């Protein structure tokens, strides 16, 4: 199955967040008809993490999460180009697979790390992150703000380096009208 531009391609970090929060089903609901993919390098990273945390294994068993492997040279050249900016000692290969899929197949990427996300933006590729998807989940009434805000605050502080303390997510989405008030209760 070759992903098209309607596909969602996940990096390891965002998938890990959904799995460990127990929200894999929510992700499936939000994806709806959209195909969800991970490149084989992300699959390998998840497998390695599953050895230490069995919960991670559930995403590897989810039949709606498709694994993309390619020997297409344009894809591999793109992967290599991103690896030259990101990879050392085998780290960050997942992002390179995600970026290469975004660049060669036009998929929308889900990346939390700011450097690969910045590279995606620099190249005009379609990219989003976990927190916006959590907002969508609240709007779709799949999750509530109280369920999400602790995880979102953690992400904002540790992944995105936004200067918010606890409660920052709630305050920001309300102040900026990113969620309607009734969606937050």
């Amino acid at each position, binding site marked *: 199955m070759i992903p098209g531009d309607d596909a969602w391609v996940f990096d390891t970090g965002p998938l890990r967040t959904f799995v460990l929060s127990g929200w894999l089903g929510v992700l499936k609901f939000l994806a709806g008809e959209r195909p969800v993919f991970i*490149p*084989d*390098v992300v699959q*390998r990273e998840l497998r390695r993490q599953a050895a230490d945390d069995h919960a991670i294994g559930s995403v590897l068993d989810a039949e709606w999460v498709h694994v993309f*492997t*390619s*020997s297409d*040279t*344009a*894809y*591999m*050249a793109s*992967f*290599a*180009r991103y*690896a*030259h*900016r*990101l*990879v*050392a*000692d*085998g*780290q*960050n*290969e997942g992002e*390179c*697979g995600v970026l*290469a899929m975004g660049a060669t197949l036009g998929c929308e990427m889900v990346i939390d*790390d*700011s*450097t*690969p996300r*910045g*590279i995606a933006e620099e190249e005009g590729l379609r*990219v*989003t*992150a976990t*927190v*916006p998807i959590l*907002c969508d989940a609240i709007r779709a009434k799949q999750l509530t703000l109280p369920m999400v805000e602790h995880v979102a605050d953690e992400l*904002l502080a540790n992944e*995105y*380096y*936004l*200067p918010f303390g606890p409660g920052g997510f709630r305050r*920001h*989405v309300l102040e*900026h009208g*990113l969620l309607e008030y009734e969606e937050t209760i």
Partner: protein
Amino acid sequence: MAHPDAAALGVRIREARVRADLSQEELASRVGFSGHSVVAKIETGVRKVSALELSDIAAAIGIHMIEFFEEPAPAIVSHRESRTPGATDSTVDARLALLAREVEFVDSLDGGDGLGLERGPQEQSAPTTVKEAESLAATARALLGLDSLEPIPHLVEVVGRVGLIAFSADVGKDLADAGTVLLRSGAVAFVNSHSNVGRRRLALAHELGHYLCADDYVIDWRVDLYEPKTAPIEALLDRFARALLLPADALEEAWASRLEEHGPRRAAAWVAHHYRVDMATLARRLRETGLADHQTAGIVRSHRTTRSDIVELDLYVPAEEMAGTTVPRSYEKAVLLLLEHERISRERALDLLQGTLGDDDLPAPRTRRDGEIWKYVY
């Protein structure tokens, strides 16, 4: 470079494996393939590789995956083509290839103004006589923005002014002293830091000579030991290197006054310290400039600067240049700037810096602006 098909990619994998002196069996074992026949099929294009496998192959060979898709600097290509088919890379060959790739990569991302590769000078004629070697040294000093007398305490930074980016690492006593490769713009030099500091500096000065003469790919095995009869150009570039570090006029002035005041040993200690050369280089330079007879040169050559020399002459002993693994400051700055602007990952920054910094030495990730994440929320 057009994307290669499976057969062309297979050839590149085989060439990289051979250069790294790995058998098909060893590569298969490192990557986790079932046997050497898998590697054989990949190398002949019978079996395609996935991106994941190719990434593992590159790691097993010890190169960047990009090597399979982008040509290295033309000087490296022509050097490889000039060798016997199936030749393996020496340690210094491999270092030069890696550093050339890294420097061009950093330069390509930082917009080309951080490293100063474009400041490469006009090609000079290779010296054919001692006089021309001395003259080339004077020209080099002018190109480097130095006057005719001043010492060069920071040679790595000074050669960077003309686009020669110099790295060092200890690769052992039985390997080459140094090497240089021309890039599309500027050049990279590598110095084996196993030698003492005086010899390291002399080696880098010698590499500057090669660079000024636009020698595209050079590895020097015995800097300062080249014989005029067997290696005339190299011997003249040794002379150039000594003249660059110890200009005749400066030496004459310093030596005469110090010799009269302190005698040959202390005079040698002062001059060697001031101009950052070893005693062998100083002794040779004194002889070739006619400032010392054979006996005095012998005294200088055998003298080792003592603690009492340092105290009596009131010398300040600085950090040694090119001690162990070093990268030039301009390169270090360029890499840190790329990290600060999030153009490369932290892991890659540490990798580019050749392990000279640890994660704690890198700047903390910057605090974000709100818009950087909320713009995705509609």
